[in-house]
C-alpha cells in the first residue's frame, strides 16, 4: 500500500487489472470517495449482510438513493424491516419522500422534532402519515411539540404495546425566566394524559425533561416494567419515591437532586439500581452520601457539577473511604467538576495527593486530572470521562496535574472531546513546538467547533486550527464575533479558508454583537458558505439583511434568526411578518415558528 498524504492507493492485487483505482480516504477512514469507477459485487451480497449495512445507514440513504440503484437493492430496501427514522435535521423534501416510501410497519425507531431545524416538523409528519400504522415501533422520541400534537402521540403510546422506549421533551415557553423556576410554563400535554399513557404502556425506558414540580404526577403510574428513567430534576423525597415505586429500575439519569441539608431524611431503602448519572449537580458529593447509600449495587456512577474548590478538596479526602465501604460493585466512576477558586495559590497538589493512593491507581485504576483555569476556577475530571456531549474550552496557560502518566491521560481526554471552544487569537500562546509532531490532530474527535473572534486572526490561523482538530470530522461550526473585532472582512476570509477543509459541516451558527450590525457584510459571508451547510442559525434583526441571506443561500434546509437583546417584542413581530410575507410572495413552500427568542423557518429547498 502506498500512502501519499491523505491519498491512499489501495493496491490492486489482481493480475488482470493494470490500473490501481484510488480511493480518497481521510485520516479516520470514515469517508471513502471513489475517484474512478470500481467494480464489486455489492448487489450480490446476501440479504442479511445488506441488512447489516442498512443498519448503519439513515433511512434517507436507503429509501431515496440505494433503492434507485438497481432492482436488487430496491427489493432489499422494500423487505428491510428495521428502519430508524430520524427527522430531527432532515429537509422538508426528504421527509416528504421518506414518509411516502416507507412502510410504517417496517419502522422500529422514530425521532420526531419541532426543533429549530424542523419547525412544525411533527405536524408535517402527522399530515403525511398515520402514526397508528407504526405497529412495530419500539422506540419513539418526541422533542418540543404543541398540546394538540402531544395528544395524538400520547394516544398512540397509550394504545401501542410494541413501544418500549419513549422520550418526550417539552419546549420551554418562558421568555425570560430561569429554566428551573416553577413559574416557567412548559408547553406540552396535560400531565394526567402523559401519566395515563405511561401507566398503560409497556415501557422499559422513559426519558423526559420534566422538573421537580411536575414529577409528582408521574410517580403514581410508574410500574414494574420501567428499567431506564431520565428526568430533569427532583427532590430527595421524589428520588426516594422513584426508587420505591420502580423495583426493576436499573439506570437513572437526572440533572440534579435538590439537597436540603437542614432536613434530616428518615427514609431508607436498598434498591438494586446499577447506574446513576447526575449531570448538573451543584451540591457536594458529601451531601449526596445518604441518598447514594440507598443504591449499594451501583456499577456506574457519573457526577458532573460545580462546587467550590475548598469544599471539593475537603471531601476528596473522604471519597475513597465512602466509595470503598459502600459500593463493592462500583467499576466505573466518572466525574467532571468545575471548581470555583476563592484564594490563590490553590492547593492542586494536595487535591491530587488524595487520588494517588493504591485504591485509585491500582485497585480501581480510576485516573483523574486537575486542570487550572486561572484565575478563578479549575476542572477536575476522570480521564475516562466521556466529554463528547459537553463543550471543552481550550485553555492555554496552566499546568494540569494527573494521578498517572500525564501524557497518556491528556491524550485520552483529548480523544473524548467532541465539542471544542477556543479563541483563535489566543493561539500564539500555544507552544508551537507541540504542534502536530505526530501528524495527528490534538482533538481528533471534535465534531462541533466553536470559534470566538476577539482580535484579528494571526497569519498561521488556519494551519493552527488544522493541527488542533481534524476539520473533515467537524459537522457543526459556531462563529462568535466579539464587539471589539476590528476587521470583519479578514475574519470572513479565514472562515472561507476553513470551509475548504470542513467539508462535512452541515450546521453553521453565526453570532455577532449588536454594535457590529452596521459593519457586517452579509453578502461576503454568504459567498463563503458552501452548499453542504444546510442549517444556519444567525443573529439578525434587520429584515433587509434577513432577505439578503435567504436570497443568497438557496441551498439551506432551515434558517434560524435569533433576536439580539434590546429589540422590543413589537419589532420582532413586525420583522417576522415581513420575512414570512416575502417568502409567501415568492411562492416558496416553508414552515415556521416565531417567538420572543427567534424566527425559525423550515424551507423546502432540495
Amino acid at each position, binding site marked *: *500500500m502506498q500512502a501519499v498524504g491523505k491519498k*491512499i492507493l*489501495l493496491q*490492486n*492485487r*489482481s493480475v488482470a*487489472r493494470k490500473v490501481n*483505482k484510488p*480511493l480518497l*480516504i481521510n485520516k*479516520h*477512514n*470514515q469517508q*471513502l470517495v*471513489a475517484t474512478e469507477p*470500481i*467494480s*464489486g*459485487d*455489492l*448487489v*450480490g451480497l446476501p440479504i442479511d*449482510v445488506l441488512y*447489516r*449495512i442498512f*443498519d*448503519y*445507514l439513515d433511512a*434517507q*440513504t436507503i429509501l431515496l*438513493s*440505494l*433503492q*434507485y*440503484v*438497481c*432492482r436488487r437493492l430496491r427489493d432489499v430496501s422494500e423487505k428491510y424491516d428495521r428502519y*430508524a427514522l*430520524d427527522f430531527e435535521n432532515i429537509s*422538508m*423534501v426528504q421527509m*416528504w*419522500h421518506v414518509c411516502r416510501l416507507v412502510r410504517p410497519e417496517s419502522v422500529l425507531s422514530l*425521532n420526531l422534532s419541532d426543533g429549530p431545524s424542523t419547525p412544525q416538523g411533527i405536524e408535517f409528519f402527522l*399530515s*403525511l402519515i398515520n402514526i397508528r400504522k407504526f405497529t412495530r415501533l419500539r*422506540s419513539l422520541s418526541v422533542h418540543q411539540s404543541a398540546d394538540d400534537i402531544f395528544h395524538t402521540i400520547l394516544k398512540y403510546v397509550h394504545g401501542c404495546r410494541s413501544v418500549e*422506549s419513549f*422520550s418526550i421533551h417539552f419546549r420551554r415557553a418562558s421568555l425570560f425566566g430561569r429554566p428551573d423556576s416553577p413559574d416557567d410554563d412548559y408547553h406540552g400535554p396535560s400531565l394526567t394524559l402523559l401519566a395515563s399513557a405511561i401507566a398503560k404502556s409497556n415501557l422499559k*425506558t422513559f426519558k423526559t425533561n420534566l422538573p421537580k414540580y411536575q414529577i409528582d404526577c408521574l410517580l403514581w403510574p410508574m410500574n414494574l416494567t420501567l428499567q431506564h428513567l*431520565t428526568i430533569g430534576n427532583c427532590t430527595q423525597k421524589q428520588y426516594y419515591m422513584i426508587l420505591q415505586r420502580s423495583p426493576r429500575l*436499573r*439506570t*437513572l439519569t437526572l440533572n440534579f437532586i435538590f439537597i436540603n441539608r437542614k432536613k434530616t431524611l428518615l427514609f431508607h431503602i436498598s434498591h438494586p439500581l*446499577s*447506574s446513576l448519572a447526575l449531570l448538573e449537580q451543584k451540591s457536594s458529593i458529601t451531601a449526596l452520601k445518604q441518598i447514594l447509600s440507598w443504591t449499594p449495587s451501583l*456499577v456506574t456512577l457519573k457526577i458532573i457539577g460545580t462546587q467550590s474548590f475548598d469544599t471539593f478538596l475537603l471531601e476528596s479526602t473522604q471519597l475513597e473511604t465512602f466509595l470503598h465501604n459502600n459500593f463493592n460493585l462500583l467499576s466505573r466512576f466518572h466525574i467532571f467538576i468545575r471548581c470555583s477558586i476563592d484564594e490563590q495559590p490553590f492547593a492542586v497538589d494536595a487535591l491530587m495527593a488524595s487520588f494517588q493512593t493504591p485504591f485509585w491507581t491500582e485497585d480501581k485504576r480510576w485516573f483523574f486530572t486537575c486542570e487550572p483555569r486561572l484565575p478563578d476556577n479549575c476542572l477536575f475530571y476522570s480521564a475516562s470521562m466521556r466529554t463528547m456531549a459537553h463543550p471543552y474550552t481550550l485553555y492555554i496557560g496552566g499546568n494540569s496535574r494527573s494521578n498517572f502518566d500525564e501524557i497518556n491521560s491528556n491524550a485520552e481526554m483529548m480523544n473524548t472531546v467532541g465539542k471544542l471552544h477556543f479563541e483563535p487569537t489566543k493561539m500564539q500562546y500555544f507552544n508551537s513546538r507541540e504542534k502536530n509532531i505526530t501528524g495527528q490532530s490534538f482533538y481528533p474527535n471534535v465534531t462541533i467547533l466553536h470559534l470566538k473572534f476577539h482580535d484579528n486572526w494571526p497569519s498561521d490561523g488556519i494551519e493552527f486550527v488544522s493541527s488542533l482538530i481534524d476539520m473533515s470530522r467537524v459537522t457543526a461550526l459556531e462563529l462568535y464575533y466579539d464587539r471589539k473585532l476590528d476587521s470583519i472582512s479578514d475574519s470572513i476570509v479565514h472562515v472561507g479558508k476553513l470551509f475548504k477543509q470542513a467539508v462535512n459541516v452541515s450546521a453553521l451558527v453565526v453570532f455577532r454583537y449588536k454594535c457590529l450590525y452596521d459593519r457586517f457584510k452579509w453578502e461576503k459571508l454568504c459567498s463563503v458558505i458552501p452548499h453542504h451547510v444546510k442549517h444556519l442559525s444567525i443573529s439578525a434583526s434587520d429584515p433587509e439583511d434577513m432577505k439578503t441571506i435567504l436570497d443568497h443561500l438557496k441551498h439551506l434546509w432551515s434558517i434560524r434568526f435569533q433576536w439580539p437583546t434590546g429589540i422590543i417584542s413589537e419589532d420582532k413581530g413586525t420583522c417576522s411578518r415581513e420575512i414570512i410575507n416575502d417568502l409567501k410572495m415568492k411562492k416558496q413552500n416553508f414552515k*415556521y415558528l416565531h417567538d420572543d427568542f427567534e424566527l425559525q423557518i423550515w424551507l*423546502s429547498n*432540495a
Partner: protein
Amino acid sequence: MATTTDSSNTSATTTTENATSKTIKIQSNDGETHEIDQGVVEQSSTIKTLSDLMDLGDVPIPLPNVKGSILTPIVEFCNYHKNDPKPEPLDDDDDDDPNKDIYEPKRSDDICEWDQNFIKRFTVQEGTLFDIIMATVGCKTIANMVRGKASSEVREMFNISYDPPGEGLNAPNAIESQAGTVPTTQDTSATGPSPQPDPMN
C-alpha cells in the same frame, strides 16, 4: 499446494491470554489450513456449528466457499477480536448507559484504528472487500461509503450497471414517474415541498 499457517503469529498481543488450549483446524477451498483456538471458533457461527457437529480429530474442517487468501485475514481479524467484550443483546436488562437508545441507528464512526488499517488491505475492485464483509467493520465501511450519496454516485462507485432498458427501476423515467406530486397541507402558512425525483441526486 496445501500450506499450514500458524495463525497465532498474527494475533494481537493483547488477545491471547484468555484463549483456551483446545484448537481445531480449518481448511480453505484451495487447501490452506489454519489452526485456530476456541476464541476464534466462538466468533464464527459457521465454524462453531461445524465443530460442534463434527469431531474430526486432527482432520481440518473444510470451508468450500472460502479462498485461502480470504481465510487468512479473517482468522487474523478473529484472533485480534476474540477477547473483545461480547455485544449486548437488544433487550439486555443490564444496559447501563442511560443515554443510549438501543433502537437508535447504529454508529459506524467507531471503527477502531486496527480495524481501519485492516480494511485498507482489501479493495472493492477485486472483490475482496465483499468477501470479508461478514465482519462488522466491512459493513460499517460500506455504509460510510454510500451514506448521503445519490443513486448515480453509488452506481458509479460500485460500477453497477442499469437494469435492462425500460424494465429497471433505476431507469431515469421510472424514477421520475415515482417521484409523485406536490403534497398538500391544510396550513396556509406552510405548504409541502416541490416534487423532487430522487432527492439525493
